[in-house]
């Protein structure tokens, strides 16, 4: 009631949602977020983080233990899945194997309250089959289709009821790598063209970053960060986010803050050298983790410390220099032309306006 003026803007609202399974497992702990109309939002996280539970509750396939879900300002918690005006694309597509592609796509229009005349159902189905480019597969059975084709059938079937919200549960995970890239672009352009609000579950950060208008990162049933893609790189909320997002993964160094400086095992940085605007918490003396993305720790004439390169790995346009620091492997991402080789002693320098400091609890203070 309080946010009536926001209805149009925030199309999906999740408020203090909690889910405890019968076996006592708490899959979601007090989750709140909202999604704007027409946005494509990715729910990202490692397996078991609660993202699929979240999606199932949005669909009405699971009942929340407490909390509320609003679509277009109205609570849908007590509304059956079929009345929620949603489309759902399952990880395994869940196509009905005994029906042809056309019958699969038509199915939602032949049962329940969306039931239409056969001719009309066929017309609508064909329209969406055209959009998803599966018209010529109409009379095939799903068993004869490739993964990519099945995917499109699943999307066409989800869209045919002309739902308000499209929910997709890891829709790309059953495809091979090349197809995945292609289909994810197609999905993005399709949902933008149709203008449907979409929630897309994935465990693949790259997928999330490339497709999502924004990303909601889950871990252990808690939202870690709800933000636009680049901020997961540039401004991670906490230690988990910094480590989950980024490839190659972020470098972590154990450090101490004392006497106005940060000291690692073989380097020191005066606190005064930090960008004062980026300080988020009190830098009280104690133990911290200093994290820096590999592209922000580079060889230079005058580095923070010296390391022996233990391995050089080529990844496309770049090279990863691997080195041991204080017993832990760390990486530096350099361009292809570098001449540094395995065994070389290299001075490494961190960009101080790009490093992060986390407390032992994982809270970011810088």
């Amino acid at each position, binding site marked *: 009631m309080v946010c009536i003026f926001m209805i149009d803007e925030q199309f999906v609202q999740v408020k203090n949602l909690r889910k405890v399974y019968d076996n006592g497992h708490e899959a979601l702990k007090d989750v709140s977020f909202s999604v704007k109309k027409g946005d494509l939002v990715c729910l990202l996280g490692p397996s078991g983080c609660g993202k699929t539970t979240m999606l199932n509750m949005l669909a009405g*396939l*699971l*009942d929340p233990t407490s909390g509320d879900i609003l679509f277009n300002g109205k609570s849908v918690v007590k509304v059956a899945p079929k009345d929620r005006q949603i489309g759902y694309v399952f990880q395994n597509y869940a196509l009905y194997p005994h029906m042809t592609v056309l019958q699969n796509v038509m199915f939602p229009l032949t049962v329940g309250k969306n039931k239409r005349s056969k001719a009309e159902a066929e017309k609508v189905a064909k329209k969406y089959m055209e959009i998803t480019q599966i018209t010529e597969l109409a009379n095939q059975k799903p068993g004869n289709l490739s993964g990519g084709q099945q995917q499109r059938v699943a999307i066409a079937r989800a869209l045919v009821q002309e739902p308000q919200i499209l929910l997709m549960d890891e829709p790309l995970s059953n495809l091979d790598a090349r197809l995945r890239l292609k289909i994810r672009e197609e999905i993005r352009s399709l949902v933008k063209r149709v203008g449907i609000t979409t929630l897309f579950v994935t465990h693949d950060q790259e997928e999330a970053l490339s497709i999502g208008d924004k990303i909601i990162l889950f871990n252990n049933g808690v939202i870690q960060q709800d933000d636009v893609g680049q901020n997961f790189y540039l401004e991670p909320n906490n230690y988990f986010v910094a480590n989950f997002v980024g490839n190659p993964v972020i470098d972590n160094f154990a450090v101490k803050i004392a006497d106005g400086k940060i000291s690692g095992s073989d380097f020191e940085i005066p606190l005064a050298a930090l960008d004062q605007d980026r300080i988020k918490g009190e830098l009280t003396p104690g133990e911290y983790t200093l994290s820096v993305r590999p592209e922000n720790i580079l060889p230079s004439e005058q580095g923070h410390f010296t390391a022996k390169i233990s391995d050089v790995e080529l990844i496309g346009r770049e090279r990863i220099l691997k080195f041991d620091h204080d017993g832990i492997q760390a990486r530096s991402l350099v361009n292809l032309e570098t001449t540094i080789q395995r065994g070389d002693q290299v001075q490494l320098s961190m960009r101080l306006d790009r490093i992060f400091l986390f407390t032992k609890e994982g809270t970011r203070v810088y």
Partner: protein
Amino acid sequence: MKKNQTKAWLFLAPTVILSTLFLIWPILRAFVMSFQSGSLINLSWTGFSNYKYIFSDPEFWSSMSHTILYAVVTVPIGLAISVMLAWMIFSKVKHKSFWETTFFMPYVTSTIAIGIVFRYIFNGDYGILNFVLKFFHLPTANWLDDPSMSMITVIIFGIWTSLAFNIVILMGALRNIDPNFYTIAEMYGASSNEKFWRITMPQLVPTLAFLLTMDVISAFKVYTSIYALFNGQAGVGNSASVAVFYIYNKFQMVGTPGVAMAATVILFLLILLTTFLQRKLMKKIGEN
């Protein structure tokens, strides 16, 4: 998944109601009736007297000993022949499904009808079995009319009947054995015999344990085949009377349902014991 309390019970209602009426209720009822005497309409409590009665009834003991004799002889022989035939079909010959189809025929056919044929085959005067035995200069017998032969006749018919189910189940189990086991064994030069005893048999143990139990249980329940062989009788002079015959007789003919139910409870306990022993056996096998 969402909870659908009432809907679920609605779907289950026919099964739950019917099973309560015709499965759970009769077990309890049988148990209660075994402590009662009188006719069906006029039952009264008599404690353990029905049990005392059957335990001192020589007819009960002869029926039980016939039942157990039938189980102890029919089941192992039937199983051994089935294993041999199934292994031959599986490993030696072509057209496996032809053989399987042939051997499975008795399973789907009426015991009464086939019993009539066997009665004809077993006939002491003009039966073809005696003729064949004579042809090979083997001793003949009066299969149906000699009381001392009754149980042997029943057992032969029982073995003939039991092969079908055993063979088909064993074929299923044989097909489930990973063919790579045999490929590897062949690479090490294992003979056909070695393959059978070292690979096939150990893999078949759970199936054999299952069949053993199923066969023993159905042997305890043998009735129709005897009825068919001896034209509604339990052999000449009750020489092939078995547990279910005894129960039927006490229930329907003599009109002492309490006694019949006491015998039923004993039979039920025997079957439970067999199932229980099978569970134990399977568990032990599972552990090894």
